[in-house]
């Protein structure tokens, strides 16, 4: 009898040695005459347990992790293929508390299936959304997405249905669907996990968008730092085309949608939608003034739906199960779920998909288990490098776009970066300005020049030079950046700076190091 094992091909697992573990498993199995088959799945998102090895048994999939190549012989010795006990044993994967308590709608298949198997994809509900969409009028698809309450998951949280409605309502020879896969925010990796772990879902979501607004061509703009995601997207596109889910005459419907992956080139600001469009057109990633909106004058000046990976990836569920099924999750005006990403100094880092409304405290302690270092959590940055630094007093605010904003935070793309009490917040504030120096596109002076001045002013404050005057100057500078920048790069860089100053002022007034 052949036993099936699952070892992830997600780049997080690869980064921790999954390929070497697979090689060790194959070699040890051959040596013992055991018959095994290893499927390379996406990651279950429990990244501190990677490389995770799952064994298929009658009771379900049993997990072992983190497994190193040197553990493999011991696992065989313990009879792990037939339910034998081992110190790395975690029981049934889906009964692991961290996993069991999640509400996985978008990530339902990720970690369960082989990302590059159309058969596996369909066996687990894949393409049900596309089939439902093909049976509807385009306007019905748009209204379903609108009714679901889905908002842009890239961070801006603009209602997806309204964006699609706008594009659908414009007459044009060629419309485009563009996926923003330039996931540059530190602390975020959910887009990457979708592209590597369930690329067909993204393809399906974009195809549905194409049907809804009448676009026949789409681009996925993927950052160059994600070589594994690029590769799996390219392979998945080819698979979908071969099986008739993409390209000409989709599933015999006479409808067309072509999809292409384009590689970014290491520019953070290209995650801003208008800069991304400039880049796709072959120019410098310089932000455009809005209006005109990309929905009307987008890629190559044509009406364009541009959404984040998770936004498109949420669409197949909505079409397959109906707007209400998605709408049922969440709170207030934040409907559905968000894949939160626990990152930085965290014991149990990884992906947690939950309905909006969960608090930071629950995520940090109930899921994350506190810091990796074992020291107290001092600061948490939510929503990427442009998000605010929050102290513990803010941990009970519910993660909902509006409610969290009231507490001074930004939900953004759902990335949560944890720092313990050894962090120097003046240094983090300086880094925020420095990052803006490196990544500003240069269009707006407050962002281009202001960030350099910001680094200098923070250096003076830290050095103890006229602290009150320079602190006032820094606040003034931030005010100019907020009011005088076209996009979030300059407009939100003050978030981490000012929140560090407001909540962790003591770090700016330490005895200067001479």
């Amino acid at each position, binding site marked *: 009898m052949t036993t099936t094992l699952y070892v992830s091909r997600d780049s*997080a697992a690869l*980064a921790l040695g999954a390929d070497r573990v697979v090689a060790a498993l194959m070699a040890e199995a051959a040596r013992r005459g055991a018959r095994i088959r290893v499927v390379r799945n996406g990651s279950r998102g429990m990244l501190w347990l990677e490389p995770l090895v799952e064994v298929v048994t009658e009771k379900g999939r049993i997990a072992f992790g983190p497994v190193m190549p040197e553990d493999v012989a011991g696992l065989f010795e313990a009879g792990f293929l037939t339910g034998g006990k081992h110190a790395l044993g975690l029981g049934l994967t889906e009964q692991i508390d961290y996993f069991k308590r999640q509400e996985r709608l978008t990530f339902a298949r990720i970690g369960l299936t082989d990302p590059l198997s159309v058969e596996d994809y369909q066996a687990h509900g894949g393409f049900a959304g596309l089939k439902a969409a093909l049976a509807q009028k385009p306007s019905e698809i748009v209204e379903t997405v609108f009714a679901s309450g889905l908002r842009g998951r890239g961070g801006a949280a603009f209602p997806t249905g309204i964006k699609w409605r706008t594009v659908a309502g414009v007459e044009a020879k060629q419309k485009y669907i563009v996926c923003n896969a330039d996931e540059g925010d530190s602390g975020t990796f959910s887009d990457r996990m979708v592209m590597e772990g369930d690329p067909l879902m993204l393809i399906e979501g974009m195809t549905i968008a194409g049907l809804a607004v009448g676009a026949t061509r789409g681009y996925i703009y993927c950052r160059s730092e994600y070589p594994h995601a690029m590769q799996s997207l390219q392979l998945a596109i080819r698979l979908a085309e071969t099986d008739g889910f993409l390209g000409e005459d989709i599933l015999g419907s006479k409808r067309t949608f072509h999809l292409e992956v384009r*590689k970014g080139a290491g520019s953070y600001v290209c995650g801003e939608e208008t800069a991304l469009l400039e880049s796709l057109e072959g*120019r410098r*990633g310089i932000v455009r003034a809005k209006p005109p909106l990309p929905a009307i004058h987008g890629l190559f000046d044509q009406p364009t739906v541009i959404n984040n990976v998770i936004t498109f990836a949420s669409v197949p569920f909505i079409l397959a199960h109906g707007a209400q099924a998605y709408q049922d999750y969440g709170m207030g005006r934040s409907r559905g779920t968000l894949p939160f990403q626990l990152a930085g100094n965290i014991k149990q880092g990884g992906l947690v998909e939950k309905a909006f409304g969960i608090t930071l405290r629950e995520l940090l302690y109930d899921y994350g288990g506190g810091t990796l270092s074992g020291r107290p959590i001092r600061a948490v940055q939510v929503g990427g490098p442009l998000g605010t630094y929050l102290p513990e007093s803010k941990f009970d605010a519910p993660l909902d776009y509006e409610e969290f904003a009231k507490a001074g935070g930004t939900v953004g793309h759902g990335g949560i*970066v*944890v720092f313990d009490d050894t962090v120097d917040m003046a240094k983090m504030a300086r880094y925020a300005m420095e990052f803006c120096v490196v990544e500003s596109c240069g269009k707006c002076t407050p962002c281009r020049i202001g960030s350099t001045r910001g680094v200098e002013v923070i250096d003076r404050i830290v050095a103890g030079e006229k602290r009150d005057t320079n602190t006032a100057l820094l606040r003034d500078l931030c005010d100019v950046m907020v009011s005088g920048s076209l996009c979030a790069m300059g407009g939100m860089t003050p978030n981490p700076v000012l929140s560090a100053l407001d909540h962790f002022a003591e770090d700016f007034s330490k005895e200067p190091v001479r």
Partner: protein
Amino acid sequence: MTVIIEDEEISAIVTPLQGMPGALLPILHALQDRFGYVPEDSVPLVAKALNLSRAEVHGTLTFYHHFRRHPVGRHVVHVCRAEACQAVGADALVEHAKKSLGCDFHETTSDNAVTLEPAYCLGQCAIGPSLLIDDEIHAKVTPARFDALVKGLRGGAK
């Protein structure tokens, strides 16, 4: 060592791609994939193929961090220095990397084996510090692990 790159070699890369919509980035990527950097001599050829000015091609080429205009070492190591990796010791790893390689960011080791570059997030934020060696990703990299990885790169000529 100066390597002469023939115009024909550049054109062979540019010509098949020039008809794509928004062809400039794909062309620059293809050139860099082939030569390890985008040769200066290719700028006028690309400009001509796409009906752009040299300034436009130069502007685009120099805007993006990913594109290089000079040859690099046999391997490129990108060390992440974004917030999530900083929270678990990226700064110390960066310092160690610079010291152990004897070069700063954007520089190459004296044996031409490794070019060191900063990265602003490699998407491994839960298991930092992380780095990319060419297209190979590594996480939870300690200074000792860094040395072991780099030793393999510097060992023999490729």
